């Protein structure tokens, strides 16, 4: 759960959120680079941890009929394929790999900006409102997406970033510090970004990605 002393004000909170969104997105992008087995093992571990922390929601996900939902961030290199039902699992797949109707692919797809999808999964934002504003697009089995949304929303607010970080060793210890300092850090990054020509701006993004780069190195499962 989130530190009560984090986010002294809403602006810093908003910036911290943006920072950790970027961070986790970069982290997600690295999962496939681990190789399929290690990547899946990491995600399986994440799922087990989430199930421990959110038993009600995960029991409900297992009670659903067997089906696959593709959660596809339009601004990340990787999408997540979630299998709900008794064989609950999570896989990272290259984005654009499969849509509804492809053999072995998803029964439903929810597509949108990574930050919005994360907000939605964590129950921070109303999915209907996002959909009305067309920030989210859905295709395939609408009832499946609705069931997934309702199930996740029925949980107390999740903190997926902290949960994900907590299986990534050192990052778990770094995250609260990052959050506490996110305001000033972001100030500096944002100021620099504004002043820089586009190629260097991308350099900054690489710096952010490198912070997330600690993720694979800390994985005990990596060589499994």
């Amino acid at each position: 759960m989130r530190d009560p002393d984090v986010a002294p004000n809403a602006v810093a909170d908003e910036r911290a959120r943006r920072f950790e969104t970027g961070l986790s997105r970069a982290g997600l992008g690295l999962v496939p680079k681990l190789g399929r087995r290690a990547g899946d093992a990491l995600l399986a571990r994440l799922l087990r941890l989430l199930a421990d922390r959110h038993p009600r929601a995960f029991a409900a996900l297992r009670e659903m009929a067997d089906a696959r939902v593709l959660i596809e961030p339009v601004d990340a290199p990787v999408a997540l394929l979630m299998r709900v039902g008794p064989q609950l699992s999570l896989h990272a797949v290259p984005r654009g790999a499969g849509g509804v109707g492809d053999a072995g692919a998803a029964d439903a797809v929810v597509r949108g900006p990574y930050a919005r999808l994360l907000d939605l999964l964590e129950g921070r934002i109303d999915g209907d409102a996002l959909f009305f504003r067309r920030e989210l697009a859905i295709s395939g089995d609408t009832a499946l997406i609705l069931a997934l949304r309702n199930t996740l929303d029925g949980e107390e607010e999740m903190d997926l970033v902290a949960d994900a970080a907590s299986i990534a060793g050192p990052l778990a210890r770094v995250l609260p510090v990052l959050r506490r300092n996110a305001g000033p850090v972001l100030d500096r990054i944002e100021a620099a970004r504004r002043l820089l020509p586009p190629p260097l701006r991308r350099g900054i993004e690489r710096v952010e990605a490198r912070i997330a780069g600690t993720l694979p190195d800390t994985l005990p499962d990596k060589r499994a």
Partner: protein
Amino acid sequence: MDNFELICPAGTPAALRAAVDAGADAVYLGFRDETNARNFPGLNFTRQDVADSVDYAHARRVEVYVAINTYPQAGNLGPWQKAVDDAARLKVDAVIMADPGLLAYAAKRHPDLRLHLSVQASAANVEAIRLYRDAFGVRRVVLPRVLTVPEIAKLNAEIDIETEVFVFGGLCPMAEGRCSLSSYATGLSPNKQGVCSPASHVRYEQRGGALASTLGGFTINVFGEGEQAGYPTLCKGRFVAGDGPAYLFEEPTSLNAMDLLPELKAAGVRALKIEGRQRGKAYIAAVVRAYREALETFAAGRPVPHIDLQAMVEGGTQTTGAYTRAWR
């Protein structure tokens, strides 16, 4: 002057806690089956959820109502009667029902259980409301969304039970509980299965930059690029009658009667209801908090502030619906 009671929706225990924490006076919910009119996948409460939720709410002096407001299936009354029995056993504060047969059962079996008449019964006149009071001892009626505020005032002058009206959320342009549009397109209806325009029969398809929504194979709407979308509820779709496509029944819009608090108070309304058991807890927290603030301001005799709920509404527009005559 007694303040209005604020009656808030919950589709999940987390949403119930959000509503309680945001200032609800009562939260209404349904069991996880076809006995309630929001029988959506992944939504609603197990018996244990209700027990826990009643504990949580009562500890904070908030009431819990259970909606058992579909029409029981012929030859299979058991699930509905059991829902009533369980609601009574779980010490909920009221049950909200529509079917005369089920109301008769509840009145006979559980004489101490407080009965509210659901909007699904569509009791829109004095005679109908008195019938439910006299026959079953109904204590409060949720008015159908077909009456103007002056009509509500007249009605309240002639009846001696409480009235509850919707003030925010999705809006049925049709008389509730008397609509088979969903059933016609999908075979599933609010009265029988507790669903309207069910997601199981909804498909979205991209048509270039446009987004088309279909229900049971019928195209309900096509949204142009950048245009606000809506869920393909049949009566909020765009159809062609005569000239080009238009929102024949109702725009994708949300009811917001916050500006009508003084009129509703003068009309003798007891309770204000927020729609949206199918919406997320973020919606519930935001809307309940806004209405709580409005009610406190109103009770203190200050002008009701304009609170921005634009981000929460369908289609990005708000209406006072049937409460003002021009709607018709």
